[in-house]
């Protein structure tokens, strides 16, 4: 039986929806919950003469010399360490765990097709690099400053008075003494700035605000763009950052001009990725302005809000196609609504059986096992 490995975490609905579709198509999905390591998972690699063996065991996971056709590098989760570690032992334990887990990712399925490949991800997510390469390729980008230099930042804000937006490099939320904090893309003015020494320790991205007719979320499945128009200016909460109001957003099918699509493909090729979610602004005069590209972007919200875009089915076919697999001839399009209930049941079971990542809205941070359990 063909098999696909999915690196994920227990609140990742995308993983469960895709797993459900793959199983219906006769492909075995194997979900690897990374934060189960090291408390709930054990792993070993060993040599035996010329042979090399790998074993990873944990709840619902038994990887011993398994062969996978494809790996979906969806949400590779950091290890979660227990609370009862001696504080002085924590940092070296974290380093050991990370080193070993990163090795396991590279060793678990070297002959499989990876979506996206492991190594390029580390550079593909770097926003200053994206901006430079996008500009070199000919995509229009906003006037931008990435900096921790207070003087340069103040000059930039004055030059774009009242029309500068601030983005952090890392969009995740984090735990504070009061609860949780999250940073969204938002307008910034000089009075918002803290003292210079606190600007200096907190570099960020500053961009001239671009007038919007609408925004595009373009999910590239290999060479094929799936474009969705997001009518963010019509929703006040979404005017600067549509993630803030994604539940109330109107989403429609859209077209991407061939020239813009070609430049996006070139950028993906340069970044070394085969799956990407692009965020673009379309200005009132029809220009397409590149904001950023996410190699691990969300996409099911598109079909949820616009069932005319069957992106779950298209993603699953893309994943199999990369691995030289395909559903049986004539297999009809699977809709998100058909698998939603089953996927939610899978997710409900996973939240009980596996260790959660630090936050449902973060990239990866390393917190303790019990902190995750409390959430």
């Amino acid at each position, binding site marked *: 039986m063909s098999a696909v490995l999915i690196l994920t975490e227990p609140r990742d609905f995308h993983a469960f*929806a895709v797993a459900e579709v793959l199983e219906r198509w006769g492909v075995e999905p194997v979900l690897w919950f990374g934060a189960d390591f090291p408390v709930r998972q054990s792993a070993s690699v060993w040599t035996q003469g010329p042979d090399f063996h790998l074993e990873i065991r944990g709840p619902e996971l038994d990887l011993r010399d398994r062969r996978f056709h494809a790996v979906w590098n969806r949400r590779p989760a950091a290890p979660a360490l227990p609370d009862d570690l001696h504080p002085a032992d924590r940092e070296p334990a974290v380093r050991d765990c990370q080193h070993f887990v990163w090795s396991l990712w590279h060793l678990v399925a070297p002959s499989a097709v990876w979506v996206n490949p492991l190594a390029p991800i580390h550079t593909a997510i770097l926003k200053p690099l994206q901006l430079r390469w996008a500009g070199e390729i000919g995509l229009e980008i906003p006037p931008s400053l990435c900096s921790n230099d207070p003087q340069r930042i103040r000059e930039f804000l004055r030059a774009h008075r009242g029309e500068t937006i601030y983005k952090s490099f890392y969009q995740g939320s984090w735990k504070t003494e009061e609860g949780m904090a999250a940073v969204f893309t938002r307008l910034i003015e000089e009075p918002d700035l803290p003292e210079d020494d606190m600007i200096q320790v907190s570099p960020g991205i500053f961009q001239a605000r671009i007038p919007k007719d609408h925004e595009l979320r373009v999910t590239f499945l290999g060479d094929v763009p799936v474009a969705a128009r997001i009518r963010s200016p019509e929703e006040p909460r979404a005017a600067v950052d549509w993630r803030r109001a994604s539940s109330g957003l109107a989403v429609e099918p859209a077209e991407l001009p061939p020239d813009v699509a070609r430049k996006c493909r070139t950028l993906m090729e340069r970044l070394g990725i085969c799956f990407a979610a692009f965020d673009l602004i379309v200005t009132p005069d029809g220009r397409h302005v590149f904001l950023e590209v996410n190699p691990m972007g969300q996409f099911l919200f598109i079909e949820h809000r616009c069932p005319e875009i069957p992106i779950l089915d298209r993603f699953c076919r893309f994943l199999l196609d990369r691995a030289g697999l395909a559903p049986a001839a004539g297999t009809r399009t699977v809709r998100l609504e058909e698998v939603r209930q089953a996927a939610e049941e899978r997710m409900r079971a996973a939240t009980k059986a596996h260790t959660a990542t630090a936050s449902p809205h973060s990239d990866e941070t390393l917190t303790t096992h019990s902190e995750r359990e409390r959430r």
Partner: protein
Amino acid sequence: MKKRTLRRCMAEEISDDQLRRIAGSLQTDPDPEGVPTYNEKGEEVD
């Protein structure tokens, strides 16, 4: 008193529930039916 970074100055306080709703809305749904909600003690609540 400890100083606050630019990032912290630009951030906003957000409840776990708000956070979960935003994350859920990007997945598919702001509050998927049938998916449990947990309180701060990790207990499942309605």
